[in-house]
């Protein structure tokens, strides 16, 4: 019995406090932000990172020259490491400077000059470690050190140095490196002067080698460091959206020492890569990278300190968002991200207080949120009692159902095929979809542009007249009869081909097979049944699906797009003919090509925001609505929940460096956790009692047997 008691005592002592606390007891009372990640971030290298699940890390570590203002809406670019947001200067083909109002056709090049703040320092990192003689300690890497290292904090010597303009230039050159396969390399080759030439040179120089290629030796015509704190980027033609890219980690600085450090032989085999261990100047640095369990960001002691914004939107002061104005950020000491692959534990741990904030799955919606008197949403009493807060925002993204325009049945720009698509677009009741699957968290799309972007129109002018009627001050989906009429005009009265009487069968291609998908697919078939169209679900794995999309053998599919930057160009280019998926490998998944639309797109793309651009966008959206290559879906509305101890939260869809703004009241959190997580021993005691009860007859039988044998 002794050892049992001993272990019991040990067990109980190990978990003083709530027994279900998933964190070590030593972390209690600390200013740590707890969150989760659902999938291992694959690339933390700023040249390669492009997934939404990587930005929680890259956003805090890397500092591009610009950032989005945390509080102001519409989204506004403000300097981060730069001294000011750069203004483009325009030049003609002869190299003469043009006035800012010059027509786009005359502009041969735009030049952006960026001045960065002096005195910014990189985080501590072994790549910067130098001996007394000024020689790098770990370049070349001593084998004995490498044999013991599995993580960057394992290296005994660390160092730092000041950020210079050359580090920004070095990173832009990395974007061109064929070895890194930066996802935006193809795009940047169209814009940055000399970018493709550098790519070719690097491909030749690096073809036979696996070791570090010192990019400082290779010139990039369009990008140069003017002095220690200034660099200049030369862009072909006029591309006003370019400044948005300067707020993304792609354009963050990267010291050549880090590149040299990680590109040594044997490093990748020990998981020591830039994809796993980023090097930046930001407020936080990665100290634990165990992607099967936990990622941990800790305050970067070298961070210069940045004041919390002093002004915000209307109402921000009342919300307490300006309480910290002017104080030096960051406020939170560390951020712990735990792997959480399933939604149920994620949500439950949030309710238990072990995560500070949570997104909202459709299954938890009714528990957390209800519609208030005015039609807006408010928290349920249960959530309010817990002191949970709600933040909402409409994401700059768009979901749609696409028709493959190359397909013989649903494709084609002629009257008949167009009417077939229009009929389907009416039949698919997006309002019901949003109600069932997103619990009302979305607004039905009237066109390709999500709200909050220039060019989006509200109200009567903004509705899609093909699918909606304007009635009583609201957009109302046309009745199903209208769809049936269109279907008949398209040559399929009552869902059967007028010529042959053959029933119309359409194919829906999808790669989904999660637990929730069957319900969704059933619903979709129900929508087509309204028109007597049989929808065949062709579900497959992701690879095959991509194959089909590339070959253009799909018929109908679902797709979505998240904005890279808040400009209508970033959505309308999804329908630009030369961007077709088939053949060109672009992002125009529906393979839509309308010459008029393409012509307007080229015009619109280079315009500055203004009435002229609005007119162009209006006519483009009108063309797309009529042609209906997409049945517009919806723009998701994000509902974020957070506990009351998490301060300074304002949903910001463009900024990804929110962590530094957050503040945590750790004492309040500990009190709440203790209150919410009282173990219930009664339940298991009951279960034990039941088991004992079940064993009772056995005991009786035993004693009877004993008696019998004793007699």
């Amino acid at each position: 019995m002794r050892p049992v008691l001993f272990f019991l005592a040990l067990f109980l002592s190990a978990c003083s406090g709530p027994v279900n606390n998933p964190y070590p007891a030593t972390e209690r009372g600390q200013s740590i932000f707890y969150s989760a990640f659902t999938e291992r971030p694959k690339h933390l290298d700023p040249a390669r990172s492009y997934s939404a699940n990587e930005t929680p890390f890259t956003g805090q570590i890397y500092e591009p020259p610009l950032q989005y203002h945390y509080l102001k809406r519409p989204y506004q670019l403000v300097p981060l490491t730069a001294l000011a947001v750069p203004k483009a200067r325009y030049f003609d083909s002869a190299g003469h400077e043009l006035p800012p109002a010059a027509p786009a056709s005359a502009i041969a090049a735009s030049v952006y000059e960026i001045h960065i703040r002096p005195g910014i320092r990189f985080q501590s990192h072994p790549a910067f470690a130098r001996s007394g003689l000024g020689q790098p300690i770990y370049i070349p890497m001593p084998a004995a050190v490498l044999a013991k290292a599995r993580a960057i904090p394992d290296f005994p010597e660390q160092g730092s140095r000041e950020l210079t303009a050359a580090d920004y230039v070095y990173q832009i050159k990395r974007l061109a490196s064929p070895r890194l396969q930066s996802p935006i390399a193809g795009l940047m080759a169209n814009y940055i002067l000399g970018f493709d030439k550098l790519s070719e040179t690097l491909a030749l120089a690096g073809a036979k080698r696996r070791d570090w290629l010192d990019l400082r030796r290779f010139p990039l015509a369009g990008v140069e460091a003017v002095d220690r704190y200034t660099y200049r980027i030369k862009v072909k033609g006029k591309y006003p959206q370019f400044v948005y890219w300067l707020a993304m980690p792609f354009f963050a600085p990267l010291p050549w020492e880090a590149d040299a450090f990680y590109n040594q032989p044997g490093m990748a085999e020990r998981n020591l890569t830039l994809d796993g261990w980023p090097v930046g100047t930001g407020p936080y640095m990665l100290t634990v990278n165990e992607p099967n369990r936990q990622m941990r960001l800790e305050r970067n002691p070298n961070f210069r300190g940045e004041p919390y914004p002093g002004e915000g939107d209307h109402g921000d002061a009342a919300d307490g968002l300006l309480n910290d104005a002017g104080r030096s950020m960051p406020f939170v000491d560390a951020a712990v991200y735990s792997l959480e692959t399933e939604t149920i534990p994620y949500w439950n741990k949030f309710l238990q207080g072990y995560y500070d904030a949570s997104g909202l799955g459709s299954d938890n919606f009714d528990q957390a949120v209800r519609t208030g008197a005015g039609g807006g949403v408010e928290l349920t009493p249960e959530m309010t009692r817990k002191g949970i807060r709600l933040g909402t925002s409409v994401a700059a993204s768009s979901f749609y159902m696409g028709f493959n325009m190359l397909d013989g049945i649903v494709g084609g720009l002629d009257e008949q095929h167009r009417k077939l698509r229009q009929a389907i677009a009416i039949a698919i009741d997006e309002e019901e979809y949003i109600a069932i699957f997103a619990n009302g968290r979305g607004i039905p799309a009237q066109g390709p542009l999500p709200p909050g972007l220039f060019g989006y129109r509200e109200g009567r002018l903004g509705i899609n007249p093909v699918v909606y009627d304007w009635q009583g001050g609201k957009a109302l989906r046309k009745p199903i009869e209208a769809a049936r009429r269109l279907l008949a005009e398209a040559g399929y009265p009552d869902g059967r081909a007028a010529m042959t009487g053959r029933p119309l069968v359409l194919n829906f291609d999808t790669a989904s097979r999660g637990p929730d998908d069957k319900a969704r697919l059933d619903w979709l078939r129900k929508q087509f049944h309204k028109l007597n169209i049989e929808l065949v679900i062709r579900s497959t794995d992701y690879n095959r699906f991509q194959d089909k999309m590339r070959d253009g053998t799909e018929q109908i599919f679902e797709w979505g797009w998240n904005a890279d930057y808040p400009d209508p160009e970033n959505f309308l280019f999804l329908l630009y003919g030369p961007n077709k998926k088939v053949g060109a490998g672009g992002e125009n998944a529906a393979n839509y090509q309308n010459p008029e639309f393409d012509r307007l797109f080229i015009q619109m793309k280079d315009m500055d925001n203004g009435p002229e651009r609005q007119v162009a966008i209006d006519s483009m959206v009108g063309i797309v609505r009529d042609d209906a290559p997409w049945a517009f879906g919806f723009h998701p509305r994000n509902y974020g929940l957070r506990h009351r101890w998490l301060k300074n939260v304002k949903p910001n869809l463009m900024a990804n460096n929110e962590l530094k703004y957050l503040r945590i009241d750790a004492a309040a959190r500990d009190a709440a956790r203790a209150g919410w997580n009282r173990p219930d021993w009664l339940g298991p005691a009951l279960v034990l009692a039941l088991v004992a009860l079940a064993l009772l007859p056995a005991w009786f039988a035993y004693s009877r047997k004993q008696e019998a044998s004793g007699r």
Partner: protein
Amino acid sequence: MRPVLLWTDGLIWLLVAGLIAFVWLVRRHEHLRVPWRKLASDPVAVAAAVVLLFFTAIAVSDSIHFRLALPAGAGGGTHYSPEVRSVLDVLSGPLAKQQEKSYSAPFACRLFTRETVTLADGRQVRIYPRLRYGGAHLDDPERQRTGDIMVRVGYGLVGGALAWLALWLGLRPWFGRAASGPTIRNTLLVLCLFSGFLVALGPYYHVLGTDKVGQDVLYATLKSVRTGVLIGALTTLVTLPLSIGLGVSAGYFGGRVDDAVQYLYTTLNAIPGVLLIAAAVLIMQTQLESHPGWFETGTERADLRLLFLCLILGMTSWTGLARLLRGETLKVRELDYVMAARAFGVSDIRILLRHILPNVQHIVLISVAMDFSGLVLAEAVLSYVGVGVDPTMPSFGNMINGARLELAREPAVWWQLASAFAFMFALVLAANLFADSVQDAMDPRSRRRA
């Protein structure tokens, strides 16, 4: 109407035919009847067999597929609806068609979730709206529902009892005086009452509630029975030739053949089962994708996938039976009369068919019975891993997988999970009990048991 013969339909009918032939064979040979007689005297086995037959009846009735003709169209010629229906669909009547908007609890008259409704005066309120079908015949569901349900349960039980009476009168000449008669009678009574209950209430209420898109859960559960039964039964059917052929020949011929077969099954056994299945299922998907001509409708596609899944499960699970058969054949081979037959130069084929197979058939039967329940359970796990049946196909695995997330809702949506649990449990329990009895009756080793 045009009948549609899906691959698995054909195979399940083949299986039924095989069973009938087997029964006929057993009835003709006295020595084969002995263990079956023993089995028939075991009430647990008989009750389990009746329940299994009930499930099989559902599965078989769901395996007669057809497409209805459409009204004559403009272009002349008959065309058929692309929707494939089965006899079960017809029998279950309105269940499939009575689709609500979203979740509703068992016997509910209102939706499970609130909805924003605009009143006549333009105000918006959030209420639980009435269901389109469930309890739609009631004016004031809150007060009338309990009484109405009671009355209908009464009708159902009486109807079930009458049906049972008719059924039993029909069956009595065969089973009335057999030892198993009372058990059959009682089990049938339970099943009839249960069915009567469902038939009486099904058209008026969602007895097991509705799922996320408002489909009746009872209907989905009934449809899942076919998938479960097919996976259990067809898999063994497709593996039998392989395991019998390889196992028996390894034991009988020995030498090189034995070495080769042993090598084959050790190698296959060495690979973790789930991984082998996952890899094979992924291949199968590739093949299905690159041959769109193999199927015309979505149903046929899902069916083909089910067939391949059975084949794959079979390929990875034949090894166990083959090993047992090999061992048993080694023993039988040494029996005097087999040796004698060989000495007289009787051909190998003849010896195999005449002497070896009848002597090892009990092992095959036991193994088939034992594997059935394991396969039904395996389907659920495979669906969780993402390599199970087609996601559009109703199956217990897909139901559990989908319902898993529903438990996190507050209040929890428990009925889909509970239905899948109950029906699956009944099926597997019956199969397990039957398999147990089969083993007791057939295995000479267990006959010795005290």
